[in-house]
């Protein structure tokens, strides 16, 4: 049972990674990051149920993680909106301030 959950999580993670690295739209990148985060959450839950030492800690950890992710998404979206206002674009290619 465990391996199918893990495979599922890995597939999710890879889709998220692909999106984060390839997509140009910053909103899509943010969504992809959420996808990767949730792949991890899935792993945690799977281990808490089918792991070598099953325990509730994993599920509680996931709840924390979801809460933090929600906050993070809010902050991320806020930054994105501010960036969009400042630069007039959501295109990640054009965000190259780090170079200067």
């Amino acid at each position: 049972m465990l391996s199918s959950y893990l495979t599922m999580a890995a597939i999710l993670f890879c889709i998220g990674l692909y999106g984060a690295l390839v997509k140009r739209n910053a909103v899509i990148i943010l969504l992809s990051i959420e996808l990767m985060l949730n792949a991890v959450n899935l792993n945690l839950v799977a281990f808490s149920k089918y792991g070598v030492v099953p325990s509730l800690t994993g599920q509680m950890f996931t709840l924390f993680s979801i809460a933090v992710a929600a906050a993070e998404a809010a902050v991320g979206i806020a930054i994105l909106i501010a960036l969009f206002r400042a630069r007039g674009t959501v295109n990640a290619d054009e965000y190259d301030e780090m170079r200067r």
Partner: protein
Amino acid sequence: MDTTFSQWAWLIPLFPFAAFLMLLAFGRGQRMLGVTLGAASSFAGLVLSILVLIEHMTDGTAYYQYAFKWLHFGSVTLNAGFEVTNLTAIMLVVVTSVSFLVNVYSAGYMKDDERISVFFSYVALFSFSMLGLVLADNMLTLYIFWELVGVCSFLLVGFWYSKPEAKAAAKKAFIVTRIGDAGLLLGILLLYWYMPDHALDFVRIGNVFEGNTGVIAAGVTTWIAVLIFIGAVGKSGQFPLHVWLPDAMEGPTPISALIHAATMVAAGVYLVARTFDIFQASQTAMDIVAYVGGFTAIFAATIGVAQNDIKRILAYSTVSQLGYMMMALGLNSLTGGIFHLFTHAFFKALLFLGAGSVIHAVHTQNIHEMGGLGSKMRITTWTFAIGALALSGIPPFSGFWSKDMILHTALQEKPFLFVIGVAAAFFTAFYMSRLFFLVFMGKPKGDHAHESPSSMTIPLVVLAVLAVVAGFIQTPWNDTLGTWLTDGAEKAHGGGGLVMVISAAVGLLGLYLGWLVFVKGTIARDAVSSRAPWLVRLLERKYYMDELYEMLLVRPLRGLGLLLNLIDDYVVDGIVRAVGGTAVLFGRGGTRLQSGQIQTYGLVTLLGIVILIAAIVGRRFW
């Protein structure tokens, strides 16, 4: 031994040093400060030196030495200190008196120079170094001051550094004397190595070498003596390192008088005299000193005959007279060498200052462009005449007595050197009469000449008096100096009538011949140059010594320098540039990676992780 003044002798060099420091700090823009301080400090030194000398004169055994621990490493202690012997006392008076008179003279001569206070500060520094050299009680301290006077000489020869000749002459003087200094340094090291307890002070050096006790092997002794002599050769302008001295005449004339006639160039003679015990322990070294000195005497005297620059004639004359001194030392006559040093300091300083007065008046140094100055510059003419007669060895002027003593020693020890000395004396008299008659007699060639100011003529008069009387401290009938200087150890060269007659006759003959050629015209001036032009050219070109050095040493060294420069430019710098270039290249690549695209960074990180994982996993199947 209680001494009243000798224990304060260390103050003597400190007077000019204080003047130097004050001029360095406050001299800028203070034109009179240099003159005042220079004259005052050297006068204070002169007074104290005379007191020291009187003390030593009245009490022949007066002696004072003081040394403090300077460096201490391992079991070796190096001392620094000062020592006042009879030899030191007389040198002190020579240096301070000439230095004082030159300071006074320079007040007039350098009046219009804009760097006058710099000039006086250099002169003060030189006086300090020279007096330190004289007072030094060991070889190492002496060597330090020895180098310091070299630096001062360099600074003062190149004083008018806007003239390219002066710059070249300063460099030449420094480099050529440096060859000698290297010899001296090696000599000191050898001495240090072989002396018991590594002692370098003159007292113990004297004790070890005196009477050839065999503490140090004969071969080593010879080497030490020869190496020290090489140092003296460089400083005192002996053949073959004499080439710098005539060129050093590019410096201001008072400097030529002070450094390049009376004091610094005599330092080589003084050094040999100071370490005389080492030389006496090795007959080979003594012979080398004697023959080098004798050869230099005749060699430079013949060159002097064909020169046309008033200062260069005097410079070659200095080289030749220094040769005499060396010859005397090499013939085991300490008194003769120091006596000639003593008289020469006065009459040669007189001649140079007189020449400076002439140059000041006519603004040229070529003797053929001068003439008839006798009626316009009476004081200069008379004092110059006295100097010329003293140099030519005409009795009763001082040069006669000292030269006579050297010639007499030569006749007793090595008759061959006696012949050379007499020949050199003849040439000396001839070129001095040529110089004198061309400059002061004949038709005037310009009417703007005038007598120099009193600040310049008074030193001339004082030096003229000294040039007349200085010889009487040691005559064939009066052995004061010899007994006093060597503590009676040196056998008195009584002086036969024959030598005196010969040397006086030769001097007079030289003068007479000069008179015949340049005044009376009985012998045509081109009598020699029309018959043997090659001979005149050979002398005029100074035996092609400069050309020889240029070809044998300077060019190959330049070539080597050029080659090394190329290696430095292309090989060494190439490696450095390659290293630098690689770093820059890496940097460029790094900048390209630094695109600011967060997604690229992420991709690279991912690739890195994949490679890492692949490596870790792959190890299992290795």
